[in-house]
């Protein structure tokens, strides 16, 4: 048996194709979202600590650093949402007889539409 050439994957494989970069960014949204969730729990905990503590936190959250972190968290959350909803039709194809329903239709019905409803519900819960 003659010898063979065994290529190895470079450590920076995720930089080798634009699609791989996009994949890695998508996966890393989990870090941003995870950190935001910890922050959210802190905000919720403050709501339970009396009005004065809450008003102070609300004021602190208008600072540049807090705004910047929120913008980053929002970017990550949006990228997660959009990539997730767009992939949903691939993971859950829907058929009407022989016809497979078009991906954008499924993405809208199973993703974007509920997203709008939940968003409205949350804003209403915070502001009503």
């Amino acid at each position, binding site marked *: 048996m003659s010898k063979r050439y065994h290529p190895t994957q470079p*450590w920076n494989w*995720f930089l080798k194709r634009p699609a791989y970069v996009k994949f*890695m960014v998508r*996966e*890393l949204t*989990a*870090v941003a*979202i*995870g950190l*935001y*969730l*910890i*922050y*959210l*729990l802190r*905000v*919720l*905990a403050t*709501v*339970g600590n009396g*009005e004065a503590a*809450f*008003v102070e936190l*609300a*004021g602190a*959250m*208008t600072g540049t650093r*807090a*705004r910047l972190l*929120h*913008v980053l*968290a*929002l970017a990550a*959350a*949006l990228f*997660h*949402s959009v990539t*997730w*909803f767009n992939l949903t039709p691939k993971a859950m194809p829907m058929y009407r007889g022989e016809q497979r329903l078009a991906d954008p239709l499924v993405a809208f019905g199973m*993703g974007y539409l*509920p*997203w709008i409803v*939940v*968003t409205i519900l*949350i*804003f209403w*819960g*915070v*502001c*009503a």
Partner: protein
Amino acid sequence: MSKSNEALWWSLFSAGGVLAALAVPALVLSTGFLVATSDPSVAAERYAQLQSVLGWRIVQLAMFVVVSLSFFHCAHRIRHTLMDLGVRGVPLLLMVTCYGGALAGTVAAAVILVKF
């Protein structure tokens, strides 16, 4: 090849992914731009509103489910990303760290929400 309980973690990841996709953008906008205010009277209004709405068991339950499953979603994704990036010799350590973290977040969420 080993029998795998991966189906369980994947299911949590999947459910958490849907909930995070649906709820997190609005939550970020809420904390970042609705709750955040330097006007004390607006803050007082928000406080009263949040106190009221978080008092409903259904809202507590919804928040708990969203936060907990989203933590498990993040944990699973982080675990697999670390594996994709080369951290491969320590499968059990990764699971304990990632899912343990999600569990800690779940407990914290329960403790915080049940007080309302």
